[in-house]
Structure formats: structure tokens, C-alpha cells
């Protein structure tokens, strides 16, 4: 473990910081408040995805979420330069695993056939994942900041699911509300639903528990993809395993079982779409789903370009050359991806190793936080840590059927990672 890892990861190190009682308020309290406001704003804006100009590349690059992160980074840089506050820059550091992943993505631009596209992709990823991580890590240091972010996340999840269900009720059967792709929507809700539902149900108050149950049911009813359903299910099952009280475990599992059962059994377009997406074969019954042929194509691509990949954001340029057999039906929806294989195919095997390191190290950090909170009987800490770990478990599963590293979704992934790694330096609060 590196020095920075230990600074961010270890509860013992956290205790040391807490004992030292670093005057964070004097050191950067204003910066932290600004980060909290912007983080909540980013979380709220993420619910709208690229609405209303979905498909407009310029708007997608300059989406409100990216602008907010860029503005914050620019502000901190100016503050650091103007006041020579190196501590402010130190707060922006992200773990080496994330830096390594971003570094490999940047280097992979060298192999991209379309340099402009690769630079644009890498720039957005660095901004959203690196900048977003730093923003959420700083914002979620104090319980007040975490509470603001979680409330914003609950509102965002409610807006996204309400938008999706509302559009379907209005007659647009295939609509995903503010999201153009059901896979992107499934990934988004697959991360946010476990986070918010766990946080609400573990709050201990019945109105919040009821709200959590409704949000879980709405999330599961609105996703029409295997990835979304699996992500929410795994996320909530993780939360049920980690929850401190048996009543909470039973409630989470009960909500999950009833919601999934209702979504699959309920006659309607949404359930039909879900059942269709869960089938292994195409509707003709003879062809394997193109999704799996595409996965094999990405594995095949790695045979020749094991280290180099196709270059950042240029997967589609080469992938079709590596199909073992061309599918008869061209039913592939955009972003019907596998995030792990896409990372490997674009950035090479080093990118996949770094992404895997990012996920494994943050799972370990989240698990350590849960254990530390249990040991210290810190109810609030356990609630936050369980919710963050459940969301990360959901993200890991969602990444099998979509990609968490694409623009618009990656900011929520960055938030989930940062919330698993948060270091609290408040006096008296050790986790």
C-alpha cells in the first residue's frame, strides 16, 4: 500500500488524523462548503443526463455536471495559486489507482485512429472521474456534506425514475425519461438506487423507510435491462448482508423480492422489455444475443492489441473487424456494452488492470469502513458506509452490461468511489 493509499484508506490513519484534530475549517472550510454545494448540484444535474439535447456532442461535453466540476477545479487552482495554499491542492489528490487508470487512458490516445475523438473522450474522463472524485471526496468529509450529497442523490434518483415511469405512462413505452439509452439508464439507477434505498431504509425513521421502499420498487419497475435489474438486486442484497439490524435486513430483502417479483410478473411493456433483455438468444430463437458476440469480439481484439487497445474512445472503429461470426440480426443498442471489456479493448490490458485495481481497492476501503463503524458502534457511519458499499457492488454488476466510464454516468461512479474512500477528520467521529 502506498503512502497516499494509507492516507485515504486506513481507519487507523483516519483515527490519527482525527486525534491530531487538523483545523480543517481554518485550512479549507470555505472550500469544503463550496465543494458540498457543487457536489449536490452535480448529483442533481446527473438525473437529467444530457436532456434536452441528447446526441449533441458539444452539449454532452459541456453538460452542467462537467461544467460544475471544471469550475470547481479552476476555482481551487486559482485559490492555490493566489494564496499559495498547497494544502488545498493536497486535498485534490486522488488515489494512485485512479491516477494510474487515467494515465493509461491518456497514453492510449497515441494509438487512436481518430485523435480528436480520443482526446475528447480522455479529457471528459479525466475531468469527470479525476475531478469528480476529488470534488466528492472533499465534499463528503463531514457528516453535513455527506447528508447533503445523499439527499441530492435521493432527489436525483426520484427524478430519474419518475421521469422514466411518467413517460411510459404517457404512452412512450420504450422511453427512459431523461436518458436516451435503457442501458445507460439501467447503469445510473443500478448505482443510485442501492445507495439511496439503503441510506433511507437504514435511517431508522418510518417515513424514510417507506420512501426507500417506494424508490426501490420504482427503480426496479423502471429499469428494462438485465444489467439494471442485476445491479439493483446485488446492491440491495449487499446492503441486506451488511446492515446492522435484523429488521433492516428483512425489510431490504422483502422490498427487493417483492419489487423484482412484481416487475417480472406484471404484464406490460416494461416487463416484456426486461424479459426480452434477459434472454440469451435473439427473438428469432437461433441467433445468440449480439451482446455476447460483441463480448467475444472484444476478447478477440485483445489478442492483437493486448497492450495498445484501440485507443481511448475508439472501440467502434476496430471492433467489427474482430467478430468471429457476423450476427444475422443487427439489434445492438448503443451502450449495450461490457464496461470491463470495453476498458480493456480501448486502453489495453493495463487499463483493465488499473480499473480492476480501482474497484478492488475501493471495495476494500468500503469494507474497512463498515467494519470500523461496527466496531465503534457508529450507527451513522455504518449507514453511510453500507450505502456506499452497496452502490459500489451495484456499479460492479452494472458494468457488465453497460459502461460506468462513459460521459454522463462516470460522475456518479466517481461519487460512489469517493464515498467509499471518504476520510472523516471531524473530532469525535472516527469513521
Amino acid at each position, binding site marked *: 500500500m502506498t503512502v497516499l493509499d494509507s492516507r485515504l484508506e486506513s481507519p487507523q490513519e483516519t483515527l490519527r488524523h482525527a486525534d491530531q484534530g487538523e483545523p480543517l475549517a481554518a485550512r479549507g472550510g470555505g472550500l469544503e462548503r463550496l465543494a458540498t454545494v457543487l457536489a449536490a448540484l452535480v448529483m442533481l444535474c446527473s438525473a437529467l443526463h444530457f436532456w434536452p439535447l441528447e446526441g449533441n456532442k458539444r452539449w454532452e461535453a459541456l453538460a452542467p455536471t462537467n461544467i460544475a466540476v471544471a469550475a470547481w477545479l479552476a476555482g481551487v487552482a486559482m485559490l492555490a495559486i493566489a494564496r499559495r495554499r498547497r494544502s488545498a491542492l493536497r486535498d485534490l489528490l486522488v488515489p494512485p489507482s485512479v491516477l494510474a487508470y487515467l*494515465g493509461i487512458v*491518456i497514453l492510449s490516445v*497515441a*494509438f487512436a485512429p481518430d485523435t480528436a475523438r480520443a482526446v475528447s473522450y480522455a479529457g471528459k474522463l479525466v475531468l469527470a472521474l479525476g475531478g469528480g472524485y476529488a470534488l466528492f471526496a472533499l465534499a463528503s468529509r463531514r457528516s453535513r456534506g455527506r447528508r447533503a450529497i445523499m439527499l441530492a442523490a435521493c432527489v436525483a434518483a426520484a427524478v430519474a425514475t419518475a421521469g422514466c415511469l411518467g413517460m411510459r405512462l404517457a404512452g412512450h413505452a420504450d422511453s427512459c425519461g431523461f436518458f436516451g439509452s435503457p442501458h445507460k439508464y439501467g447503469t445510473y439507477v443500478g448505482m443510485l438506487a442501492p445507495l439511496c434505498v439503503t441510506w433511507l431504509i437504514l435511517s431508522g425513521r418510518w417515513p424514510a423507510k417507506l420512501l426507500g421502499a417506494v424508490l426501490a420498487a420504482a427503480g426496479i419497475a423502471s429499469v428494462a435491462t438485465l444489467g439494471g435489474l442485476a445491479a439493483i438486486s446485488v446492491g440491495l442484497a449487499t446492503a441486506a448482508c451488511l446492515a446492522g439490524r435484523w429488521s433492516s435486513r428483512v425489510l431490504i430483502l422483502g422490498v427487493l423480492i417483492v419489487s423484482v417479483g412484481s416487475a417480472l410478473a406484471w404484464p406490460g411493456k416494461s416487463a416484456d422489455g426486461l424479459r426480452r433483455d434477459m434472454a440469451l438468444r435473439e427473438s428469432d430463437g437461433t441467433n445468440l444475443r449480439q451482446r*455476447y458476440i460483441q463480448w467475444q469480439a472484444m476478447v478477440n481484439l485483445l489478442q492483437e492489441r493486448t497492450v495498445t487497445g484501440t485507443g481511448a474512445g475508439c472501440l467502434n472503429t476496430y471492433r467489427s473487424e474482430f467478430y468471429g461470426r457476423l450476427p444475422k440480426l443487427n439489434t445492438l443498442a448503443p451502450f449495450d456494452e461490457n464496461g470491463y471489456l470495453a476498458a480493456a479493448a480501448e486502453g489495453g*490490458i493495463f487499463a483493465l488492470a488499473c480499473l480492476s485495481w480501482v474497484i*478492488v481497492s475501493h471495495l476494500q476501503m468500503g469494507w474497512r469502513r463498515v467494519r470500523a463503524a461496527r466496531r465503534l458502534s457508529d450507527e451513522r457511519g455504518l449507514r453511510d458506509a453500507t450505502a456506499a458499499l452497496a452502490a459500489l457492488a451495484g456499479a460492479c454488476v452494472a458494468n457488465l452490461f453497460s459502461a460506468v466510464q462513459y460521459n454522463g454516468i462516470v460522475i456518479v461512479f466517481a461519487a460512489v468511489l469517493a464515498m467509499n474512500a471518504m476520510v472523516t477528520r471531524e473530532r469525535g467521529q472516527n469513521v
Partner: protein
Amino acid sequence: MNEPLSSKLVPQPSRLWNGDTGETPVVPGSGTGETPVVPDSGGRWRALGHACVAGGVLFACAASLACGLTVGLKVPAILLAGCIVLWPATVSGPAGTLQRIAGAYLLSVAVNQIAPHAVGCNILDQRVAVSMSLITLAIVALGAAAERLGRDRRESAERPAADGMRSGWLGAGGLIGGHALAVGAMLVAVYGYGYEQSATVLGKVALFGCLYFLTGGTLQSAGWRRVICVVLAAYYAAVTCGVGVGR
């Protein structure tokens, strides 16, 4: 010459691996912590090992230029610029970890270029060919073994297996292997083909994972990392100038 006698009498701290950070602590007075104060047989073995690893890097780069690039580099100047990361004399901390990853990546790009090429000979009327990437791996492995031999017993005992990237490589191998198995099985069931290329891909994942771990010790040495930096920079400068391209 003017060094006070007392400084010679002060026992030098042994360069133990730090169990917490996985990094080699800096020896006071040695600058980068990589130059042993008193040359011993262990130090010589270590130097030999590092030189062997650097030789492996040189072999991969030279072979790549001689055989021609198999995967086109559109903007090799980016990788040339990436070599700068290897130059600073960082020994520990996240910067050191990033340097090791960058060094291993830049080397692996060269090895990836020579992977399809093989050198062979006839033994008992049988044609035996070995991929150049495996030759590079063998040279680097020899160097890593010599470097390991140079460590004293206590160093070897206290050295951690690797940094956090170990979990990353295990995860990458598991993900590729899992996908290869699952999708290969589905393809065989429906279309009657599968697995053809997945085994090769898994082998290459193992190859580059081994390269990463075997070059780790040398890339952690500031002096030898700079040697490798110069070799890689020369290689990418040559590629930028068009050497080996289009053969």
C-alpha cells in the same frame, strides 16, 4: 576524502522493505536510496540483475525497430512524452507506483509489437520457434532472479509480494478468463465455435502481468529507471521519426 570518521562509523540502516507501504525507504546520505554505501556481493548481484532487466528492455526496443511495428502508433510523441514520467528520482509513495506502472506500460507496448515475431531453429528435424516477447520475458526474469538473489535473507522475508496492482492484475485475468469461458461456452452451444482466441489472450495477459511484476524492482531503482527511461525515450523518438513504421 574529507568525510569525518564518525560518519563512517555510523551503522547504515539496512534497506528493508517497508511492510506498510511496499516501498524501499531512502537510506540517509545515499540520495535516492538505491546506491549501497559498501559494495558487497549482494549489491553486485542486484546491479547485475538490474542490468539484465535493462538489457531486456533494450532487446525489446531494438527487435521492435528491426522487425517493424505490427500495431500502428498514430501519435507516438505522446508515449515519448510519457517517458518523462520515469526520469524524476522518486523512490516511494504514489508517484513511485505511477512511475512503475508507466515504465511497465511503455515497455509492454514495445513487447506487444514483437509478440507476433518469432526466432526459430531446427532441432532434430523439428522446427522450434520462440516468440520474441517470450525471449524478452526470459531475459527480464533472469534479471529479476539475479536481483532477488542479491537481497539478503531478511530483505527477502520482509518484502511484500507487490503493490495494489496485484489485485488489479488478478482481477483483469479473472475478468478476461470468466468472459472467455462464459461467452465461449455460449458460442459453442449455438454456433459450434468458441475458445479459439481466448486462450492466447489469457496467455498474453499472464505475459504482461509477469513483465509488470518482474520489472518492478528495477523500475524502483532511480538510477536504473533512468537508464530504462533513456532506452525507451530513444525507442519512441525513433518511432516518431518513422523508424520501423510501415514494414
